[in-house]
């Protein structure tokens, strides 16, 4: 198998390298599509459309690879294509082994292409074993990867494939026949004969040949069946006396007896016989061409003289002027991320400027400045719309994140000997691109955990009265200003008792009175991330604290719900928009703080009798029927108070992380859109603060992390 890349660009002035990038992208998409279709293939009732689709993917990659000189990829995909061709013609029934080897071959093709894309650097993926397995499967046998097989396999080039790999079809003699049917009153009967070849796997191949008589049909047939068998078969549609079968000599060159084909190059002849035979055969070496004698538009067989040349088009050596009609409009365009980020920044600046104008114009007399104020109101609306549009550019659907899991789970489940169904919900839910990259690792970890430690083995499941196959569900949805991603499994869940005793062992302060939710949260505690905990408890100790940290870094939260014996659910909640949010500004001691409007439930003036003190100075406030903790921002942020007259008498109830708290503030200043600025890029993470923003007057205000405040109040 060729390791080098032929430079097709060497043919004259044709530099094909400019098309490489298009081909790499196109091939990548085809291989991805192929993988997806293979994973979704129903082995029992494989439908034609899917089989054809998978075939076309391999065919397309092969064609491009061959054209652009990537011989190793062309060779491998050619083998895949041969197997897929048999599958789509129903000559073979698809099975799991075939899917496996095709998936592995697609992977190998990808890495070979990547190597070419990187200029030929890097390790060369071995493909000899894959090719061997494909040809064994294509011949109707079962195949095992090289490790399982002893010295039977020749690692040498494809051409050396052992005779055992020769397809079953060849063990009988393949005959080339010419079948004439007629004269018929209704020629549809003869057409029905063609259907037989389509419907019956392994019967052979049939092609229509032109014939003068209109009440007759002529076919070229390749089959291993005997004349008798064929006549019996055709009897369904046409009586024997109207069928005439003659054998053709299957020559290496032109096959048709009556009409001649003008072959352009000697190389064309060599191609005639080679291709249909064995799937193990290497690609035809020389491209050929030819014209059908007497076909419309065909040149006469007279040697070309100057006569034809003078009519030929002047070959202009000029640069190719793209006089090409465009194909159907592309539905998408590719844009550099940096451009999008720049756009978002600019829109952010626009929002700030607009807010400043709005603030400064508040003092204006509406009667006098009516037009200006109405213009500013329009500006406000336009800016809001623009901002929404721009933010949505960076939003991509969760399906991008979900797409890696079917394959990963299939491989993992098979390795662990488990049966797992993978279900996704809410693939269309959109997420900021920056988040997508960061959420993939934690989610992968959670899904792996469910498969590894959650879902039991088929035997265990049956013993527990469950179905053999477990289900892992991955779902995404928008809730308020957040996106909620859940990983659910119907496995064995977590044992409260075991976690508590393990926690005590590790010296953690726990009590039996802890709610279930609090117990589950223990597995995030640093003390749980050790290997021996993996086997003892639910086996979910490893890496969970990393998952939680990663999610917290995105200003998100993780919640766990579990029922022993039934399963487990991990919910990840992330804020949707990173850059711009609706905020409520509050004043405490002369300082301004911003609360995310999506967390604010209500606000009210506090009455002294509604507040009660418990424990070590913590306060609770009664809101209708509910008691909730009070958080004095003045204390938490050590806000210096100069005006002893004024005091905090307004409570703002916020909800985050599933609980509510009441924040004690001096005054409510208003609501506005704020551009969230990162505090950590130049400074550091500040507790209870999620970011900063610039107010209309140009001053900085801190944005409060309501989740952190709520969690703080819990103990």
């Amino acid at each position, binding site marked *: 198998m060729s390791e080098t890349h032929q430079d097709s660009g060497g043919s004259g002035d044709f530099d094909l390298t400019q098309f490489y990038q298009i081909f790499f992208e196109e091939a990548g998409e085809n291989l991805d599509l192929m993988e997806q279709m293979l994973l979704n293939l129903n082995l029992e009732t494989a439908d034609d459309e899917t089989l054809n689709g998978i075939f076309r993917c391999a065919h397309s990659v092969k064609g491009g690879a061959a054209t652009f000189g990537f011989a190793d990829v062309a060779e491998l995909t050619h083998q895949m294509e041969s197997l897929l061709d048999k599958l789509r013609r129903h000559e073979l029934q698809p099975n799991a082994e075939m899917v496996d080897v095709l998936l592995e071959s697609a992977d190998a093709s990808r890495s070979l292409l990547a190597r070419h894309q990187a200029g030929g650097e890097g390790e060369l993926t071995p493909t000899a074993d894959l090719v061997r397995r494909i040809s064994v499967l294509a011949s109707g046998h079962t195949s095992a990867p090289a490790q399982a097989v002893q010295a039977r396999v020749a690692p040498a080039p494809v051409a050396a494939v052992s005779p055992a790999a020769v397809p079953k079809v060849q063990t009988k003699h393949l005959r080339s026949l010419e079948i004439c049917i007629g004269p018929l009153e209704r020629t549809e009967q003869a057409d029905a004969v063609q259907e037989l070849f389509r419907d019956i796997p392994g019967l052979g191949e049939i092609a229509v040949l032109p014939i003068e008589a209109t009440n007759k049909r002529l076919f070229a047939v390749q089959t291993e069946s005997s004349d008798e068998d064929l006549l019996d078969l055709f009897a369904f549609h046409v009586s024997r006396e109207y069928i005439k079968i003659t054998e053709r000599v299957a020559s290496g060159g032109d096959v048709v007896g009556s009409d001649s084909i003008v072959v352009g190059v000697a190389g064309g002849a060599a191609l005639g016989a080679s291709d249909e035979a064995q799937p193990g055969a290497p690609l035809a070496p020389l491209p050929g061409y030819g014209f059908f004698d007497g076909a419309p538009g065909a040149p006469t067989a007279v040697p070309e003289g100057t006569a034809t040349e003078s009519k030929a088009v002047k070959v202009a050596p000029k640069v190719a002027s793209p006089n090409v009609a465009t194909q159907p409009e592309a539905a998408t365009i590719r844009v550099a991320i940096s451009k999008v980020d720049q756009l978002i920044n600019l829109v952010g600046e626009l929002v700030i400027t607009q807010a400043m104008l709005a603030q400064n114009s508040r003092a204006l007399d509406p009667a006098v400045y009516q037009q200006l104020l109405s213009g500013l109101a329009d500006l406000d609306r336009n800016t809001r719309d623009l901002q929404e549009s721009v933010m949505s550019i960076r939003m991509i659907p969760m399906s991008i994140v979900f797409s890696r899991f079917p394959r990963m789970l299939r491989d993992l489940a098979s390795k662990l000997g488990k049966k797992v169904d993978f279900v996704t919900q809410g693939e269309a839910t959109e997420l900021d691109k920056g988040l997508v990259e960061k959420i993939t690792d934690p989610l992968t970890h959670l899904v792996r955990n469910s498969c590894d430690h959650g879902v039991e083995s088929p035997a265990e499941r049956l013993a527990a009265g469950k179905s053999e196959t477990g289900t892992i569900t991955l779902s995404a949805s928008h809730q308020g200003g957040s996106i909620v991603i859940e990983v659910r499994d119907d496995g064995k869940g977590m044992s409260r008792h075991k976690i508590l005793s393990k926690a005590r062992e590790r010296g953690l302060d726990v009590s039996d009175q802890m709610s279930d939710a609090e117990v589950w949260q223990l597995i995030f505690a640093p003390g749980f991330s050790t290997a021996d905990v993996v086997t003892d408890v639910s086996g979910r100790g490893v890496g969970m604290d990393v998952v939680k940290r990663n999610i917290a870094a995105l200003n998100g939260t993780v919640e766990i719900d579990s029922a022993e014996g039934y399963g487990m659910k991990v919910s990840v909640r992330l804020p949707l928009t990173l850059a711009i949010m609706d905020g409520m500004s509050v004043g405490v001691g002369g300082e301004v703080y911003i609360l995310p409007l999506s967390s604010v439930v209500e606000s009210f003036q506090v009455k002294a009798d509604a507040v009660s003190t418990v424990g070590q100075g913590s306060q609770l406030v009664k809101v209708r029927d509910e008691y909730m903790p009070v958080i004095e921002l003045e204390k938490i*942020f050590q806000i210096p108070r100069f005006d002893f007259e004024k005091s905090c008498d307004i409570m703002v109830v916020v909800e985050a992380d599933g609980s509510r708290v009441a924040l004690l503030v001096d005054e409510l200043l208003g609501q506005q859109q704020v551009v969230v600025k990162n*505090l950590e890029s130049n400074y550091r993470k500040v507790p*209870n603060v999620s970011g*900063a923003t610039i107010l209309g007057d140009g001053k900085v*205000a801190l944005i409060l992390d309501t989740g952190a405040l709520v969690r703080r109040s819990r103990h």
Partner: protein
Amino acid sequence: MGMMEKIDEMASSEAREYLTFRLDQEEYGIDILKVQEIRGYEPPTRVANAPDFIKGVVNLRGTIVPIVDMRLKFNCSKVEYNTFTVVIILNLRSRIVGVVVDSVSDVMELPPDSIKAAPDIDSVIDSGAVLGLGSLGERMLILLDIERLMAAPDMGLVSGPE
């Protein structure tokens, strides 16, 4: 890097330009290439639970920048905020920081041979951050490795492991 090695390193390079500023009675010099701009002082937004020398954060054309008062950090006797008070905005590779100083003088070019090692005195400044003493006529400048100074954990700008 020890003091002598630093001097050697500087000696082998060409003359550099230093922005000079004043803290109390002392004059300091920092690499001009690290200076982004110079602004007047405006009260920053306070950030809770920060050391006293971190005054807070300000808005620098859309970017949030922390402000460190060098006079407080170096325990200067007099700390005032008046019309001469200046904030030097530094652009240090991965971060932008503002430092409050009493005043800014000029930019000086110092040939390497005019820089001498600073004696190892017990001072507030980490000796590792002092590049040397530069002299120009009557004036003596304490040359600072401002990048290293700002990255030091006790400066409170860099988060340690939580």
